[in-house]
């Protein structure tokens, strides 16, 4: 079990000669609690794997330090960090049996054979691998192989942090759900700090207590799934989380009022202290409804997704998406819409203003 602390971490991969250094990670300061389930969420190339490799010690950051339980780990080799990692593509030792695969990390650490046997059987029980212990690992399906990768981490008693680098990429959809619940269950059972990297919001939101959203090398928001949904701190979070993403519309603050194309938008949020000028209005499709008291729009199209419908409407040049419950009628003549005053946020330069 370990608390992980990042202090002023920055990292740049060597740039080709003559080109400016590009930071894959920019200035990260975070404290992750012991025993937490964290998800690193972000699009490809946002720096999440870089951050993960810094934790595991496969990469040493260009600047800053990493602490586990207050101990500086920045330049310690992987083997001394008490971490385990499950990779995107299942790594198993093909020529070994499932048992030998699970025993491998312990044998490398010269653990006595009877102790190994006990641990391997305990872990195999936990992962439901007992029946295949004698089989060759290469014959297993992708999800079985991922379980072995995970098992090789769990089998070591000294492991404090387990990291998952998009572990469900190659798993069949109907097994993804099973394996994910297994992970959740193991986390509750073992209380090891778990860090889960993914670009899939469903995986992140269902797995983690705390989701760390990354974008272009920065941590843009850390919060519970509800935080991320209800009050995205950055328009990227609004867009990336939720389906469809948040509508971001051009607005203006003037004379103590927020307006959108000259229509005044009512908000409960206090915006007295925000300087006047251009702003962005962020509102989720869930929090817009058709109402005759609102401003007029043109209905462009309606997609019926079974449980709900997504209406796309147009105002000026902006396309606005609205989530409408299945049973509700969408007005076809002169539709008007209003934003939920409590759940509409203001942004400036993509960051939320309060």
């Amino acid at each position, binding site marked *: 079990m370990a608390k992980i602390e990042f202090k002023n971490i920055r990292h740049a991969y060597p740039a080709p000669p003559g080109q400016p250094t590009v930071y894959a990670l920019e200035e990260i300061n975070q404290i992750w609690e012991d025993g937490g389930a964290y998800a690193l969420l972000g699009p490809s190339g946002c720096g999440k794997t870089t951050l993960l490799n810094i934790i*595991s010690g*496969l990469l040493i950051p260009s600047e800053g330090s990493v602490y586990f339980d207050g101990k500086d780990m920045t330049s310690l080799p992987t083997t001394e960090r008490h971490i385990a*990692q499950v990779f995107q*593509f299942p*790594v198993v030792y*093909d020529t070994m049996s499932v048992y030998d695969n699970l025993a491998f990390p312990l044998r*490398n*650490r010269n653990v006595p054979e009877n102790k190994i046997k006990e641990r391997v059987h305990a872990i195999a029980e936990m992962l439901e691998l007992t029946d295949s212990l004698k089989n060759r690992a290469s014959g297993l399906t992708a999800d079985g192989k991922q379980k072995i990768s995970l098992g090789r981490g769990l089998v070591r008693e000294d492991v404090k942090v387990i990291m998952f680098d998009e572990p469900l990429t190659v798993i069949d959809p109907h097994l993804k759900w099973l394996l994910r619940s297994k992970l959740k269950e193991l986390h509750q059972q073992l209380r090891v700090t778990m860090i889960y990297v993914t670009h899939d919001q469903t995986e992140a939101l269902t797995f983690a207590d705390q989701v760390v959203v990354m974008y272009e090398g920065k941590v843009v928001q850390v919060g519970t799934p509800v935080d991320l949904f209800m009050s995205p701190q950055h328009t990227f979070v609004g867009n990336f989380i939720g389906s469809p993403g948040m509508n971001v519309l051009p607005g203006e603050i003037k004379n103590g009022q927020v307006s959108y194309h000259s229509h005044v938008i009512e908000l409960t949020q206090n915006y007295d202290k925000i300087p006047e000028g251009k702003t962005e209005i962020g509102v989720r499709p869930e929090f817009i409804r058709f109402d005759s008291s609102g401003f007029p729009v043109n209905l462009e199209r309606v997609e019926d997704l079974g449980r709900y419908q997504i209406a796309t409407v147009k105002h000026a040049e902006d396309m606005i998406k609205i989530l409408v419950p299945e049973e509700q009628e969408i007005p076809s003549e002169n539709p008007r819409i209003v934003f939920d005053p409590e759940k509409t946020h203001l942004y400036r330069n993509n960051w939320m203003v309060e």
Partner: protein
Amino acid sequence: MNKTINQKAWWLILPVLVLVAFNAFIPLMTVVNYSFQETFGNNQFFWEGTTWFEQVLNSDRFHAAFLRQMLFTAMIIVIEVPLGIAVALTMPKKGPWVSVCLVLMALPLLIPWNVVGAMWNIFALPDIGLLGYTLNSMGIDYNFTQQPVSAWITTVVMDVWHWTSLVVLLCYAGLSSIPDAYYQAASIDGASKWAVFRYIQLPKMNRVLTIAVLLRFMDSFMIYTEPFVLTGGGPGNTTTFLSIDLVKMALGQFDLGPAAAMSLIYFLVVLLICWTFYTIMTRDEVN
């Protein structure tokens, strides 16, 4: 699953069938023809049955050449395969040196075989060759034109020089296809360098090594040009391998019948060993 059955596709392989017929099947049948008959020219043939086969299989000369061939092939495989793996492991994985290494490795493979023979012949000559002269001036009695042991060592070293590169390139290809995650997982699992080799690199090279051993077996078992240019099969008959012996019999003595029978036996032996080896090596994958 329903497959569409369309027999017209057979026409598409007709060109290849014609090509194979003319460059392999028909010449092979000519050899079969010779192996069962006696001819004195003028296209006159007399049926001999299995006489030539019995003669070849019972001859001491064939046995001796066959043993020499087996010994030579075994030696070069035992040397070239581990050496090739070792060299491939030390080659850089990325950076500008990769292409330099690859080109250097490919060089021996690009040299025509008779040139390789000629190069080593001159290189090893005891009076004027760099290698031969150096060895002799160091007090080592070395003369490949007269001593069977020297001739053998020179032939084997020449083959190792010429063909280890092939094993290296194949192994290197096998090694580069191993994803980084394997090495990272191994380092997290605390695996030693030896364990990484034994449980990751070697198993992942399994396929390419099978191909490497097969290619090296076939090529070395049929080796002709290089030892012919280097030693001409001598001194005496000590480096007369199967193909050299075959050419002596067919073109030197013009014994077309026995030579044809020997060709067929030779061909079947190569086929049988390759098939056995391949079956054993790929047996695990089927299960």
